[in-house]
């Protein structure tokens, strides 16, 4: 019954990727840019949660809330200062800026908090429960549950609220959205706020699973989640969810059955194959050429 426990662990890891991927995909859907600094917002979230727990001795939920608040503000500030001035610029300029912001955050963290890694306290009880023959840790269950809750809330928000409707309108046609009176800049800010808040949630789950916090810790999960977003179809919210989960499962299976060293190569290899067969990703929209 190893299989079942691998599958559940894969879902757990995939849930983290999915939550991060939502940030990539929403920002892409609305601002039409790849925010490569997204992974580093996760890093900042981990540090904030770490200090909130250890230095200030805050209880776990409050520490998470603090991380969410700081990351949300950080995301909005990054957008205002770095990306907003480039609204009319070619997308390559925006992409390079995003990479610049990523290095800025990593190096800023190194100056502020040193490059040596810190051990994230284990706040979530180490216990586990048995599902059939597999034993599943509370942390994995919490991660999967969080992902499901996030997904439900986000779907309701996007489909049922006025702001959600405005977000969908902006992702389709910014000019027509302005004609409706929608403040597109404000919608982009909200999108960055949501994406970065989600990154903070992911950061706490990630740091609890792999309990070491260091300035470049965001890059690898960031890249993987980006892969998940592309895999599922960038711009699509359900796509990020499905892409994240599948990617997590592939990674754990590859580690378990093939090779630990090769697992990342296999993950990216699967991405390449999927993109060859379906260039827009699993749930991506087909690209319409409008006349």
């Amino acid at each position: 019954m190893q299989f079942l426990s691998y599958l559940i662990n894969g879902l757990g890891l995939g849930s983290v990727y999915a939550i991060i991927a939502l940030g990539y995909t929403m920002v892409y859907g609305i601002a039409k840019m790849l925010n490569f600094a997204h992974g580093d917002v996760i890093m900042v979230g981990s540090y904030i949660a770490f200090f909130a727990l250890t230095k200030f001795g805050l209880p776990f939920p409050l520490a998470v809330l603090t991380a969410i608040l700081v990351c949300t503000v950080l995301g909005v500030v990054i957008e205002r200062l770095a990306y907003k001035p480039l609204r009319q610029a070619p997308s390559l300029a925006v992409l390079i800026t995003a990479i610049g912001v990523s290095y800025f955050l990593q190096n800023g963290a190194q100056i502020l908090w040193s490059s040596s890694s810190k051990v994230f306290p284990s706040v979530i009880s180490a216990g586990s429960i048995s599902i059939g023959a597999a034993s599943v840790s509370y942390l994995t269950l919490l991660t999967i549950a969080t992902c499901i809750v996030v997904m439900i809330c986000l779907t309701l928000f996007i489909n049922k609220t006025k702001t959600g409707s405005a977000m969908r309108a902006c992702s389709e046609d910014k000019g027509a959205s302005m004609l409706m009176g929608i403040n597109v800049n404000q919608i982009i800010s909200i999108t960055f706020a949501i994406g970065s808040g989600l990154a903070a949630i992911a950061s706490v789950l990630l740091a609890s699973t792999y309990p070491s916090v260091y300035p470049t810790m965001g890059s690898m999960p960031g890249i993987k989640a980006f892969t998940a977003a592309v895999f599922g179809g960038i711009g699509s919210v359900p796509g990020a969810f499905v892409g994240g989960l599948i990617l997590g499962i592939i990674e754990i299976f590859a580690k378990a059955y093939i090779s630990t060293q090769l697992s990342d190569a296999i993950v990216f290899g699967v991405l390449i194959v999927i993109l060859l067969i379906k260039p827009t990703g699993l749930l991506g929209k087909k690209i319409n050429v409008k006349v």
Partner: protein
Amino acid sequence: MLKVTDLKVKYGMIEAIKGISFEVRDGEIVTMIGANGAGKTTTMHAISGLVKAAEGSIMLDDTELTKTPANKIVGLGLAQVPEGRRVFAEQTVEENLILGAYLRKDKDAIRTDMEEVYQLFPRLKERRTQLAGTLSGGEQQMLAMGRALMAKPSILLLDEPSMGLSPLLVSEIFHIIQEINDKGTTILLVEQNAKRALAIADRAYVLETGKITLEGTGEELSNDERVQKAYLGG
């Protein structure tokens, strides 16, 4: 109500609009006709703030529109039906209409106005839960018009509403434009279909490569030799 003075619009080095002046008075239907590339859509976009004016002034009553952000303009009572409809294809007909009333807070009045739009365009009511992208071209045009009306504008800008529609649908659309005007909404209509546009217009302007070359009442221009030659196939 709407007064444009010496408007110039540039795309990089190219001057698309070379200093035009025109006005639309309360209650009128004014049309601007011209060939492809004459600058009709650019003029419309300058009024609604989607492109920046390089020079000149666009006054809506007492507000200078060239200094107003695009998303604030609809709140001043000016709505636009853009060229190519630009409905939100992935949202339902009803969601599109609700987006048209985005800045309004009067929930009950929005309901009533939606019923009014449905009365004007019964087809939309039949299809209200359908995604806008699945509608036919004519239905999308109706939706784009209904969506603009949901803002309760005092002046409505229509950019090529007849584009790509069958003659029968064109008649229907022009009939509805007149109906909207009869109910008190001022109209600025930009058209390539000069014959139809001049037939319903109180006054008209001819735009040629960024300049206004002729103006007059709809009737005057319909009978003008130059207009007949260039735009009416006579």
